[in-house]
Every structure is written in structure tokens, then in C-alpha cells.
């Protein structure tokens, strides 16, 4: 990640890391999630799902920042994001520090 200046508390900040979950058989291939993902995490697959659509797949799993935009922009409730387990524990002290 690039910063225009180095934050003073950079050592305390952890960039949240998300995990994308896709119910591929619910997908109707609208591609909203792929289009609007700010980090290009997703892409359309060539596979057909049960309804004959091409669902997305996670192309760059490590880039996800857990912004939930794909979740909000999925008209099929077929996609959601969770915080990656190992990141959760790392995030806790920072929150405390901010308070």
C-alpha cells in the first residue's frame, strides 16, 4: 500500500483483509461486483452455473480490503465479505488505541 506521507502510527494500523464468499448458483451474472470492486478482486468466470449464467470468481483474494461494496451491490444476495480470521485479532488493539 502506498501513502502520500508516511503516517506516524503506521506500525499500529493494519489494513483490514477480507474474504469474499460467493454463492455461485444464486448468481445471475450481472457483473456489478466485478465492475465496481475498487481493488479488482473479482472477475467473471467462464463456468456456467445451474441457471446458465457465468458467476464471478475471486481472482485476487489477497487484495480484498473488506469494503463490502460487492456485498451491497449484489442484487442476488449471492456475495458477502467477512473479515479474515487472523486479521480480526490484529485489529482489536488498534481500536482500543484509538479510543
Amino acid at each position, binding site marked *: 500500500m502506498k501513502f502520500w506521507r508516511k503516517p506516524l502510527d503506521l506500525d499500529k494500523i493494519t489494513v483490514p483483509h477480507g474474504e469474499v464468499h460467493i454463492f455461485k448458483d444464486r448468481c*445471475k451474472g450481472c457483473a456489478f461486483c466485478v465492475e465496481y470492486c475498487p481493488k479488482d478482486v473479482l472477475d467473471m468466470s467462464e463456468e*456456467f452455473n*445451474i*441457471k*446458465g449464467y457465468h458467476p464471478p470468481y475471486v481472482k485476487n483474494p489477497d487484495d480484498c480490503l473488506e469494503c463490502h461494496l460487492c456485498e451491497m451491490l449484489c442484487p442476488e444476495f449471492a456475495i458477502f465479505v467477512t473479515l479474515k480470521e487472523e486479521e480480526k485479532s490484529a485489529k482489536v488493539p488498534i481500536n482500543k488505541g484509538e479510543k
Partner: protein
Amino acid sequence: MAEIRFAGYGGQGIIRSGIIVGKAASIYDNKHGTMSQSFGPEARGGACSSQLVVSDSKVLYPYITVADILVAMSQAGYDKFEAELGDDGLLIFDEDLVEPKSPHGNIKTFAIPATRFAEQLGKKIVANVVILGFFTAITDVVSYEAMKKAIPDSVPEKAIDLNMKAFEHGYNFGLELLKKQKDPQK
């Protein structure tokens, strides 16, 4: 007389397929064809089917009793209507979208990757016309000439070329398949 069922999802042109074959039969082949349709509330993706009865005399009873031909473009459509197919029936399906069980009776099955062909031709939406070409090659319900007249009548003007291409593609694929079946060595 032939009783034909087209089954698939809304948006695949299932009803349009029935109309094209019906039109070819009743206007250009001088037979009688009655097409009825059934669809759900969804514009796209819902179960959808059309049934066509083609006969040399006036069609009195307009529905399928025992289907002679089933054209399946979805698994759900196949599952629902497979039982309706007569023992000497004929099954045509899209091989990417339907996984058939082992057929009952003496049913003959023909598979075509219609949607994939259509995607390669440029528009997924012409998959039904690909399958119609295939249908024309394999069955003798309608003549090739009649179909060639009926398709331009039933599609938007701009899309005629694409549809005719799709039709020819499916038709040729069907003819080749027939040839291969007659002459397996080739």
C-alpha cells in the same frame, strides 16, 4: 401429426421457437400448427415452455398428450417434461445446460452445445435458433425451406443475418451428426 415441447428458461427464446416452427409449418408448409405457451412471472430465468401440435388437418385438441419431440434447454425443463415424452420419442437438448438421465423406451437423444455456439456467433440469445436449425435437420416436422422463410419473419430486422447464420450453423451441425451416426467410422 407431431406433438412438440420446447422447454427452458425465460429469455432463451423458448416461446419464439414454438412460434417459428409453428409458422413454418402452418404458413409455409401448409399444415396446421397450434402453439400454446406457459411461463412464470419472471421475465428471465423462470421455467418456461411452449407446446406445438403440428398436424395435416385442423388441430382440434391443442395440447400435448404424448410428446413426440422434446427440445430441452434447461435441466428443470428436462426434468419436468421428460416423462411426457413417448417411448418412440426424440430428445434434443443443449449439452451444456442439461444432463439427461438414461432414456426410457426407444427414445433417441441428440445433443448440441447450442448456447456455446451462439456465444461464439456473437449473441447468446440466438441459442434457440441454433437449436432450431439442428431440429430441422434431425426431424421432419418442418421443411428446411419453410424454416428459412419463417425465421426472417419472426426476428427483428437487424438480427436477421445473425439468426440465419445461427440457423445454418445448427442445421449443418445436425446434418453432420446424422452422417456420423450413419457412418460411425468416419
